[in-house]
Each structure stands twice: as C-alpha cells, then as structure tokens.
C-alpha cells in the first residue's frame, strides 16, 4: 500500500515539475526575451504608414523587423512579397501578394517579447535556399513570425529602405536597394569591422575602403595565399593536380585537435586536386598542411615560399605568414605571445585579384556549395555564407579567429559589354557572423552599383591615375595576370 502511495506521489510530483518547467520555459531552451522592442513606423512612397514590430537585438538600433509586418506593409507596392513561417522554415516569394494571417500592422502589446535565439534558419526565396540570421517567434495572435535585420531584408527583396535621422521613421524609397556609401560611412558603417575594401579585380579599381593598409590577423583567408603557392608550383611543374598526397603524422595529429576539420589518419591518401576543395570549402587546416608538406617537404619551406610570393607581388610590410593555414600559434619565447598570419585589406585585394586573373579556375572550387571527398568518405560544405545568399557570388574564403574576428573575402562576377568584372570584397574583424555577412553583402552590392553606374572605361578614370611606381606596378600585375 505504501509503495503504491509513493508511486502515485512521485507521478504527480513529476507532472507538477513538468508543468512548472513548461510554464517557465514555454519555448526552446535557447529562447531570448527581448526588452528593447519598438513599434517602428514604416512609410511607403505614397505616404501611407504602417506599424512594424521591431526588436533591438543586443544593442539599441540593431534592428530586426517582423517579416509579416513588412510583407503586409509592402503589399500595395511593386516590392510586395509573400511570406510564410512554418516549422522553423521561412518561405518568401517576391512579387506575390501577402495573405494576412492576423496580427500584422499592430504593435507589441507587451513590454517584452520572447523569441528563439538568433541563428540561421532556413530561408527559401523564390525557390532558392539562402542563409540569413533570423529570430523565430509568434505574434499576439499566436501566428509564427520571423524577424530579420532591416539591411538583410532590403537586400533580400531588393527594396530601398532607410531610417530618417530626424523622425526615426523607416522610409521606403521608390527604387531598388541602393547604397549611399558616403552616408553609410558618416553613419559609422565601417566601425563594426577592423578593415574593409571593395574593388574590381580586373582593373584594380577600389570603390570603397576602410583601414585598407592596416595589418590585421587574416586567419583562414591565409589559405588563398596557400592556394596561389600550390598552383604556382603546379604551373612550374613542381607538382601536379593528379598527385597523390600522403597525410603525414603532423597533419593527422592536427586533424584530431579542436582545430581539425576533417579527421585524418597518417598514411591516408588523397588527390591534390581534391585537397584544394578541402582547403577552400570547409577550410581544412590539416589539408593545407598536408599539401604544403607534399609541395616543399615541410611546412617551414612552404611558408618561405609564401613570404617570397609576398615580395614578388610587391605586397606591403603589412603582410607576413607564419604558417600555411592561418591558425594562431605561440612564439617560442619565455613571454610567449600569440602570433598569427597578417595582411592588410588592400594586400588581400591585390592577392585575390592576382589569383582570379591568373587562376580563374579557383571560382569553380570556391563557388561549389557541397563537394564529395571520396578519399575521406564525406561530403564537405562551403563555409561562405554569401554563396547561399547572393546568386553570382563565386568565392572566396572565410576566416575566423578571436584576433581576426569573423572575416570574409568574397567575389562576385559582374558581366557587362566589356566582359566579366569580378568584384572582390574584403572584410576583417567583424564582431560576429551576422555583421560579417551583412557588411560583406553590402560591399559586394556597392561594387555592383558602382559598375552599373559607370562603364569600365569611366571606372578606370575614376580609379585614379596610378601616380607612383608602386601603383603602376600593381595595376600592371593585375592586367598581366589575366593571361597565363
């Protein structure tokens, strides 16, 4: 009898505990309760105003807006779009009318609002998968909703949006998404990053730059130099893409650490051509090491090759390499300090342009979203977020360490009557991936805007006259590297 009572008591206590837990934490364990929320006013071109529920994430003015409210407000404009949020997936169809689900165009009815944590939730726009950071939540009607940054939404649906500095009203312009870089810079657009630059790799024209000559930690964007050195060795007949690379003890050991990307064992073999995918897509440090050892016998010798290349390309003193993968390491001194490969945004632009002009086949690798590495029996994925978000993106490489922040070197092929201009955007030092992705996409789009605005001949004039020997040499290297 007592055991039956005990079981009954235990059951009801468990039930009570479950109810309490559900009540206290009704959503997933990564839920965020936002206290900085706003009922933002949106004004469309005809003057009509709407209310858009807005979250200020982490810091004030870091606005994330309700997709449903925005879809509702733009419903009567040429930038209308339909949106559905279901099962954690967001589907957007541009040009389609939004069907109201209830709760749109009304403000928050509470002083707090809870959503899931900020993450990349699957978004399909016009059937194309892309990756933007969003919050998932529910409106007052209990309808699923998603919140996205204003800049990302503006680029996603190609709408001109801007905050009126005097009234604080979000205003929709009559045209497409466009960037006034002067205004952006004055408003502190570049303060989120350590350095940045966007330019035309074909002509050497720089459209916008910030701290472009400052030396910064370059993390895994190092692997672009690694790629160049590998390909130059191949061109010189020192190696072949058909070579079989044997994984060394050192590379295998690296793969087993927390910096390892692809688990490898000593003695394993893979084709050099395949290893290039491993280096550039998931940023495999052990693959970079294995190929470096294959080319030059040791990483030390390969790094000498990398630094020699710095001189050959006439890069500045801001650029120096200590290893072939970009991981930080400690100096062999009593007061050990963390040293990392370093480069300036401008030097990375020159390096990237050189590679794109000399080895355009890199785009075939860096524009690949997924690749099957037969030697290791796995499918690898490209870490470049813009590859998923912008059609036309062809590369190039992400980089992340504590010192370098979230970094990205991206490339976009723009075609005009003059042929293809590859726009390269370099970004170093973003606080996190959301900032990295948004800043990089804005830079690429600004590059497109600049090329659309002017023909290539005019762009050359605007690039400025290369008045110094150094500038002339850089321009000539870019032109010459187009022909192999």
């Amino acid at each position, binding site marked *: 009898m007592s055991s039956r009572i005990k079981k009954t008591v235990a059951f009801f206590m468990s039930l009570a505990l479950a109810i309490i837990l559900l009540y206290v934490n009704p959503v997933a364990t990564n839920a965020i309760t936002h206290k900085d929320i706003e009922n933002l006013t949106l004004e469309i071109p005809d003057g009509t105003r709407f209310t858009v529920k807005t979250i200020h994430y982490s810091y004030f003015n870091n606005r994330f807006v309700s997709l449903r409210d925005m879809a509702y407000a733009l419903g009567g404009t040429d930038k209308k779009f339909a949106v559905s949020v279901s099962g954690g997936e967001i589907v957007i169809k541009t040009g389609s009318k939004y069907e109201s689900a209830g709760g749109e165009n009304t403000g928050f009815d509470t002083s707090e609002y809870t959503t899931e944590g900020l993450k990349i939730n699957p978004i399909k726009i016009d059937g194309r998968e892309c990756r933007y950071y969003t919050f998932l939540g529910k409106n007052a009607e209990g309808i699923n909703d998603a919140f996205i940054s204003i800049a990302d939404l503006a680029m996603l649906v190609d709408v001109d949006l801007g905050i009126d500095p005097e009234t604080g009203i979000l205003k929709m312009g009559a045209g497409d998404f466009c960037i006034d870089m002067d205004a952006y810079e004055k408003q502190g657009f570049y303060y989120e990053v350590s350095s940045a630059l966007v330019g035309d790799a074909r002509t050497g024209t720089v459209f916008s730059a910030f701290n472009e000559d400052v030396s910064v930690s370059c993390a895994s964007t190092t692997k672009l130099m690694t790629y160049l050195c590998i390909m*130059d060795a191949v061109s010189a007949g020192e190696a072949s893409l058909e070579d079989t690379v044997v994984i060394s003890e050192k590379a295998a050991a690296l793969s087993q650490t927390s910096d390892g990307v692809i688990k490898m064992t000593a003695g394993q073999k893979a084709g050099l051509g395949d290893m290039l995918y491993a280096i550039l897509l998931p940023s495999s440090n052990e693959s970079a090491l294995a190929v470096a050892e294959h080319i030059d016998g040791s990483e030390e010798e390969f790094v000498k090759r990398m630094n020699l290349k710095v001189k050959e390309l006439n890069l500045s003193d801001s650029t120096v390499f200590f290893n072939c993968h970009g991981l930080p390491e400690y100096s062999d001194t009593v007061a050990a300090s963390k040293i990392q490969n370093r480069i300036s945004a401008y030097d990375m632009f020159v390096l990237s342009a050189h590679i794109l002009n000399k080895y355009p086949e890199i785009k075939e690798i860096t524009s690949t979203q997924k690749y099957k590495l037969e030697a290791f029996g796995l499918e690898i994925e490209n870490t470049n977020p813009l590859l998923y978000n912008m059609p036309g993106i062809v590369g190039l490489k992400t980089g992340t360490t504590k010192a370098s922040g979230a970094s990205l070197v991206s490339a976009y092929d723009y075609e005009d009557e003059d042929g293809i201009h590859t726009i390269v955007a370099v970004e170093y030092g973003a606080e996190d991936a959301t900032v990295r992705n948004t800043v990089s996409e804005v830079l690429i789009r600004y590059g497109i805007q600049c090329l659309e605005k002017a023909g290539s001949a005019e762009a050359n004039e605007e690039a400025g006259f*290369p008045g*110094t*020997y150094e500038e*002339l040499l850089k*321009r*000539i290297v870019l032109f010459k590297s187009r022909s192999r």
Partner: protein
Amino acid sequence: MRKYKRKLAICISMIVILLTLVGLLVYEHFFPMTKAPVGVWVYSEDVSGTASSAMREWFGNANEDPSSGEFSLEEPVYVNVILRIGNDGTYEQSVEKGSYDAARDALYQSCAAELKKSISAHLEALGMTGDASLSDAEAEELINEAVSMGSVEYLTVAIPDIIPSYEEYVKKYGDKGNYSVGDHSLTLGSRSAAKLIFDGESLLLDDTLYKKLSEKETGNDELTN
C-alpha cells in the same frame, strides 16, 4: 766736354725710358690691357644627375646611395646656356630652348626604357613572362593597357619635374646688361667672376667652362629669355 754730353744723353735716355715705363704701368693700372672675351660662348649643363635623382625617388629608393647605380642614366644629357659678349660692353645670357626641350625628351625616353626594363624584371620574377623576358614592345603595350597612354606620356604626368622647368632655368641663368673686364676678371652685371681665363676656344669663369660657339651654331631665334 764730349764725355759730359755722352753721359747727359745716357741719363736723359734712361729717364725717358723710365718715365715711359712708369707711364705705361699707370696706364695699364687704369686702362688694363686684358681683352674682353668677345663672342658667343656655350655652357652645357649635364642634367642627367638631376633626372636620375628624380627617377630614383619615384622608384622609391631615394634613401639608397645615389652612386649605387641602381638607377642612373648612362649617357649625359645637356641643357645649353648661351653667353653672348659684345665688343660694345654689353652681354646677354640665355637658355637655349631647343636644347632644353631635346634634353627633356631624351630624359623621358631614357626613363621610359628603364621603367619598361624594371616592369619586365618584376613580371619575370613573378613567373608571368614564361621563359623569355618581356620585350620592349610588350612592356609598352602593358603600360598602355594599364593607364591608357604610352610610357613616355605616362612619365611626363607621373614625374612632371624630372628636371627643373624651362622657366626655372631661365630664372637661374637668364641675364643681360653691361660688363667690365678687370685684371683677369670679368663682371657681368652684378655677377663678378674673380677668375677669367680664355683663349680662342674656351672661357673659364670661376668654375664654369664655356666653349666658343659661332653665331651659325646657335641660331639667333632660339635665344629667348
């Protein structure tokens, strides 16, 4: 008596000779016998050193030893300064425009050749030229493609002051006025040359060496200030 007359004649002759000599000396002092270097003379200033310095600075190695030879023009290039000394006590000095223009052109041509060699060497180091070096024509074509102008025209824009301007030369050398000749010295207007040595072919004024030039060689219409 005869002896007395002879002695008197000798004394008088000696006095006359002495007075004549003194007179000549006095005359020489106040009216020197040094001739004026009348004629047309030319001083050829070698400007290749100035141009070499300008090019070295542009190439970015101004701190290196100028005599290191990393960049220096092999052939001297001259700008002519013409000095005309008339027998009426006037002189005129000017910079020959034709020689200045020719010098400037020659300097830019030489510098363009050096630039193309340097570019070729750099591209060769990059492995962008294959087994052969870039030819002069290929380098010229590359420069044209990069900056939409030829190498010489590019350098005239990138290094406009490869040598001082013609106006600066005129300011430095252009002069005219009256001259006077002293004891192995010549004063041209306010400029005084303590040392004057000349013969039929050369005129040395202090450390500046002029060569004799005929009127035919200069062509009067080129002498402008």
